[in-house]
C-alpha cells in the first residue's frame, strides 16, 4: 500500500461528511469553508506562513471526533472562578449541568441556539469573519484550521452583549478536554487523535462593556493527547470595550491550533491577553481588524514553556481606518528544548493615517537548547503613522542572580524571582482578582517545574 502522505485532508473531509444537522444559514458558510480547506490542503514547510510550524506529528495522526462524555462531579470546579457566570464545554460539547450562563446578556450554546433567546445576530455574524481565510484582506490566504473549525464545529458559545450594557462580572467560557483513554489506534497502526472544535462568538453591542475569559484545559493532563482546534470571533460594536483573557493550560501532549479574530468598529476597544502554559504543539493566529476610526486593540501574550513544547503566535493587526491604535506585547519564557515562534505583522492601509502601532516581543531563554524565533513585520501604506516594533531574545541576568544570592536568597528562588519579574506584568494586568491569582499561581507553578495543572 502506498502511504498517501500524512498530510491528507481526507479524514477531516470524512468528519465533515458525517456531521449532524445545522441551521440553513450555517450550511452555506460551512460548505464554503470546507471547500477552501479542501482546495488549500494542509500547509507545508514551503508555505511562508507555516514555515516554522512543523505539523508533522499532528498530521500523522488519524482524527476521530472527540468522544461524548458527561462531566463528572467537580471536574470543572478547579478551573472556574466562583463569581463568574460561565459556560462549560466538555470535548467541545456544552455541559449545561455545570454551566450558569449570564442573565444580562444572551448566551447560547450553538448546538441549540433556539434555547437562549434572540439568535438572529448570532447567525448573522457566526462564521462571517473567521470563515477560513487568514484575514478579511482580499490578499489573505486560507487558514486551514479556521476553515476546519468553521466546517466542523458541533457546538460552541455565542454571547451577545446588548447595546449600552455594562457587565461587571467576567463571563467565563471553559473548554475542557478529556480524551477517551487509552488513546486508540486506527486500523492501520497510525495513532489516533480525538479532535474537538470549540467555537466562540462574542458580539459586543454599541457602547457596551464586558470581559470574557476563555480557559482551555485538560481534565487530567496526564491522560494523553488530543487535538483542540478553536476559533473565537469578537465583533466589537462602536464604542464598546471588550476585555478578553485566553488561558491555555492544555495537556502538554495536546495539539492546540487556534484562530481568533477581532473586528472593531468606530472607537471600539478590544484588549486581549493570551497566556499559554500547556500544549505540545501550539499555534495561535490572531487577527485584529481596526475597521472603525479611533478604534484600539491591545493584543498581549505570555508563553511559559518547557520540555519539547512548541508555541507559535502569529499576529496580524490591520489598521484600516484613521486614528487607530494597536499595542502588542508578547513575552516568552522557554526552558528545556522548548521552541517558540512569534510572527507579528502590522499592516497599515493607505487610509489609516495617524495610526499608532507598537509591537514588542521579548523572550527569556532558560536553557541552552531552548530556541525562540521572533519575526516582527511592518507593512505600511499610509504616510502619517507612528509604528514601532522590537524584539529581544535574552538569558537570565547573571549579575542580578548573583546579587540576589549574595543577599542569602537560594539559587532556585532567585531564579524564579527573576523569571517571575520578567513575566509578571502580563499576569498582573488581569483585573479580576481570582483570575489574576490563578494566573500568578500557574506562572509560579510552571517556574518551579510544575508544568500546567
Amino acid at each position, binding site marked *: 500500500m502506498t502511504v498517501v502522505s500524512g498530510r491528507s485532508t481526507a479524514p477531516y473531509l470524512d468528519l465533515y461528511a458525517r456531521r449532524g444537522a445545522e441551521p440553513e444559514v450555517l450550511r452555506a458558510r460551512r460548505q464554503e469553508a470546507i471547500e477552501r480547506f479542501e482546495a488549500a490542503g494542509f500547509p507545508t514547510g514551503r508555505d511562508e506562513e507555516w514555515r516554522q510550524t512543523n505539523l508533522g506529528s499532528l498530521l500523522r495522526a488519524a482524527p476521530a471526533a472527540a468522544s461524548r462524555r458527561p462531566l463528572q462531579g467537580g471536574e470543572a470546579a478547579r478551573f472556574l472562578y466562583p463569581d463568574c457566570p460561565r459556560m462549560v464545554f466538555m470535548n467541545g460539547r456544552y455541559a449545561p449541568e455545570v454551566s450558569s450562563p449570564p442573565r444580562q446578556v444572551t448566551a447560547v450554546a450553538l448546538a441549540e441556539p433556539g434555547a437562549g433567546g434572540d439568535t438572529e445576530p448570532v447567525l448573522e455574524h457566526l462564521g462571517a469573519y473567521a470563515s477560513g481565510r487568514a484575514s478579511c484582506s482580499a490578499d489573505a490566504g486560507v487558514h486551514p484550521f479556521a476553515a476546519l473549525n468553521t466546517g466542523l464545529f458541533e457546538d460552541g458559545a455565542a454571547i451577545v452583549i446588548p447595546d449600552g450594557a455594562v457587565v461587571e462580572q467576567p463571563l467565563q467560557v471553559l473548554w475542557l478536554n478529556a480524551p477517551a483513554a487509552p488513546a486508540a489506534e486506527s486500523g492501520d497502526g497510525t495513532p489516533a487523535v480525538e479532535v474537538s472544535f470549540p467555537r466562540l462568538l462574542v458580539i459586543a453591542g454599541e457602547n457596551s462593556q464586558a470581559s470574557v475569559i476563555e480557559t482551555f484545559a485538560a481534565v487530567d493532563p496526564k491522560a494523553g493527547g488530543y487535538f483542540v482546534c478553536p476559533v473565537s470571533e469578537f465583533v466589537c460594536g462602536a464604542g464598546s470595550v471588550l476585555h478578553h483573557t485566553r488561558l491555555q493550560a492544555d495537556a502538554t501532549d495536546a495539539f492546540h491550533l487556534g484562530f481568533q479574530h477581532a473586528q472593531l468598529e468606530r472607537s471600539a476597544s478590544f484588549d486581549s491577553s493570551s497566556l499559554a502554559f500547556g500544549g505540545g504543539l501550539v499555534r495561535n493566529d490572531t487577527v485584529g481588524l481596526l475597521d472603525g476610526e479611533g478604534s484600539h486593540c491591545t493584543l498581549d501574550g505570555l508563553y511559559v514553556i518547557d520540555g519539547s513544547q512548541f508555541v507559535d503566535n502569529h499576529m496580524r493587526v490591520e489598521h484600516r481606518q484613521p486614528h487607530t491604535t494597536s499595542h502588542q506585547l508578547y513575552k516568552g519564557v522557554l526552558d528545556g528544548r522548548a521552541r517558540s515562534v512569534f510572527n507579528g505583522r502590522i499592516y497599515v492601509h493607505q487610509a489609516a493615517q495617524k495610526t499608532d502601532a507598537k509591537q514588542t516581543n521579548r523572550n527569556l531563554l532558560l536553557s541552552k537548547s531552548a530556541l525562540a524565533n521572533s519575526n516582527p513585520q511592518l507593512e505600511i501604506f499610509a504616510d502619517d503613522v507612528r509604528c514601532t516594533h522590537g524584539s529581544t531574545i535574552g538569558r537570565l*541576568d547573571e549579575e*542580578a542572580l548573583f546579587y540576589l544570592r*549574595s543577599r*542569602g536568597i537560594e539559587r532556585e528562588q532567585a531564579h524564579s524571582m*527573576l523569571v517571575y*519579574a520578567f513575566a509578571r506584568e502580563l499576569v498582573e494586568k488581569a483585573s479580576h482578582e481570582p483570575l489574576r491569582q490563578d494566573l500568578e499561581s500557574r506562572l509560579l507553578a510552571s517556574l518551579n517545574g510544575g508544568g500546567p495543572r
Partner: protein
Amino acid sequence: MLRVSDLHAKVEEQEILKGVDLEVNAGEVHAVMGPNGSGKSTLAQVLAGREDYDVTAGSLELDGDDLQEMAPEERAHAGLFLAFQYPVEIPGVGNSYFLKAALNAIRKARGEDELDAMDFLQLLRKRAELVDVDEALLRRPVNEGFSGGEKKRNEILQMAVLEPRLAVLDETDSGLDIDALKTVAAGVNALRSEDRAFVVITHYQRLLNYIVPDHVHVLLDGRIVRSGGSELALELEEKGYTGLTNGSSGV
C-alpha cells in the same frame, strides 16, 4: 573572623589578585585603599562568591570555614555581606519584597522563624529611617532607576536589615553628597559592635573621618603592599599611591 591568605584570583584568564593576605577580627574596621584597577572590587566579589572569578591559589576562611566551599547564599547565611560598588538593577522585583525574601532566607538558614509581613514592615521602616531611605524607594523595583546615591543608600539599608557579622563595603561612599555620607557612616556605626567587623573599600580619606578604621591597607596591582593604622589614610591622601611600591610592605 576573616582570614585571607595568599589569595590569587583570575578574571577572564587574567590574574588580578596576586597573593592577598588579610586578617580581620571581630570588632575591627579595616579600610582598603588603592588606585583604580588594583583589584579591590575583585577581592570583594571573590569574598562574596562570584562564580566567574576564579580562585587559583590561596585560601579564604570565615570563622574557620572555607568560603570556597560555600555558595554565595551560604556565605550570606554565615553572616557575610557585600555592598556592591555597582548595585544591580532588578526590574520587576520590588525592593521591600526582595529584602523580606533575603532576610527570611537568612533566618531560615539559621533555624530562626521567618518574619511575617507585619513584623518585617515594622523592622524595615525602622531601618529605612536609620539610613534615611525614602519609603517610596522601598516600593520601587530593586535599584531600578535609582540615582547613584540612592543605590548606595539602598545597599546600606540592606546591610542594616540583614545585620551581617562581616560587611564589605565597596566604595559605598563614592558619589555621595556629604549628608548622604554621614548617614551611611551612621548606618555603619550603628551596627558596629564587638562581634561584627567591616572591610571598607574607599578612595577617600573623607569617609574615614566618620568611620574610623582600626587598620588601613593599600592594595596595589593585586597585592596588599602596605598596612597601617588610620594615619596611613592621611598619608595616602597627601602623597598619593605613587610613593608606594610592591617592595615597601610595612605590615
